[in-house]
């Protein structure tokens, strides 16, 4: 399938999200601090509409009982079972990695173009 225009970049400011048609259950477009990414709206865990989940941060730890809040705005939590995925790569936080499928995105002449 050829790359196609899905929406205007103006309609997707930083921190924004749009669900558009495509793939198995649609695609989610996210503007993560200026970078636009496109993820399949299908969670690799159990098929949930993952792109409708919360965009948030997560916790990291170097010792027991320590939970540092990090990566605000970079993490997508699936709305069903809460799996955490990096928006920019589609990869889960945990190992072994499970990944949401991602698509190549470019911005041309004010349009977001997705190659799905």
């Amino acid at each position: 399938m050829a790359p196609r225009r899905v929406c205007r970049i103006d309609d997707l400011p930083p921190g924004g999200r749009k669900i558009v048609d495509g793939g198995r259950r649609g695609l989610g477009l996210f503007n993560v601090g200026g970078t636009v990414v496109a993820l399949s709206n299908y969670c690799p865990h159990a098929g949930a509409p993952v792109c409708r989940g919360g965009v948030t941060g997560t916790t990291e730890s170097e010792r027991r009982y320590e939970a540092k809040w990090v990566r605000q705005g970079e993490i997508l939590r699936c709305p069903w079972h809460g799996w955490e995925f990096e928006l920019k790569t589609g990869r889960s936080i945990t190992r072994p990695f499970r990944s949401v499928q991602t698509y190549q995105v470019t911005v041309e002449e004010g349009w977001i173009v997705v190659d799905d």
Partner: protein
Amino acid sequence: MAGLEPVIDCDVHPYPRSAQELLSYLPNTFGATIAQTLETWYDKRPGAGVFTGSGAATGGIRGDAIPVSGPPGSDPELTDRQLFDEAGVDRAILIPLTLNPMANPMHEAALCSATNRWLADTWLSKYNDHGRYRGSITVSLDMPELAVAEIETYAMQEGFVQVSVPPIARSQYSAPQYFPVFEAAARHGLPVASHTVRTLGMALLTPVGFVSYYFESHPAYTLGYYPHVASLVMGGVFERLPNLHLVCVEGGVSWIAPFMWRLDHYWRAFGEELPLLRKPPSEYIRNQVHLTTQPLDSPPNHRDLFPYLEWMGARQMLLFSSDYPHWDFDDPAEALKRLPTDCRSDIAWRNATRLYQLPEFEVASSKLSPTPPALR
């Protein structure tokens, strides 16, 4: 989204739109004081948030199941769409969770009564033109006379197919004071579903203390069911009530296989004080205990579950469930894929059809006819 198989979802949670809606169904017989207490307390009842991060990040609810207004599970149109259209469910057995265990058993009984009247008036009638919902009669074991009265009232009413009790009672299920409740259910051919409710205090106490995290507490649902299963078996209640069926909801499935063996071993070794048993415990369990599938046990390789299914006799014991609208929702297509092909139909709809005495489905083009038969 719908699969080829009919699906009966045996664990769906409707909620009233508000405390006022629920309490408007409270019968006058409970008096003004109880009504007043419940009105001031109901919206502030504790227990849900006692564990940090309980229910993943979404407070226990599927993130995309939150209605525009009203609590999750209170919008019949949203529920219809997400369950029947998107998930491919054909029938849903409703288990209201309006009740938290309360210190005063009379308060519990009052809430049960309100819940049953509300369910009868809304989800089993006004919201049920399509005839897809069936419901549970919620009762409080610790007020057995009132519980029996509720069962007698609703057993013959349209749409009620089982009795629902929490596993948090003041004693184990074979306690003599509870027998009339189980007897009434069995007499009316109504299974008894036991479903965990949110709680706090001593009900959270495990045999080795209070746990710290939801990660530890969630598997403990299972630990809350098997004492009651053992109690009903070893206490001879299943023997005295051959028509009694117990449904353990949301407790997982694979545990029942080794547990059946355990009870058989200990019955053989120390069974002298169990004079009521005529058969091995496992036989009662296989015939009279049922388990809903959600959350379906998740070994890294789903086939690792298969031996347990074989050992327990899963073909007759398991009932598909989704737990809509909760966070660990099991989508039917995804869950059924993880089960052996030769028991999918049984688990998806045949076992529930038999247990709840639902009309047989027509399976013409493997899809339900649009006009369901009349309610039982």
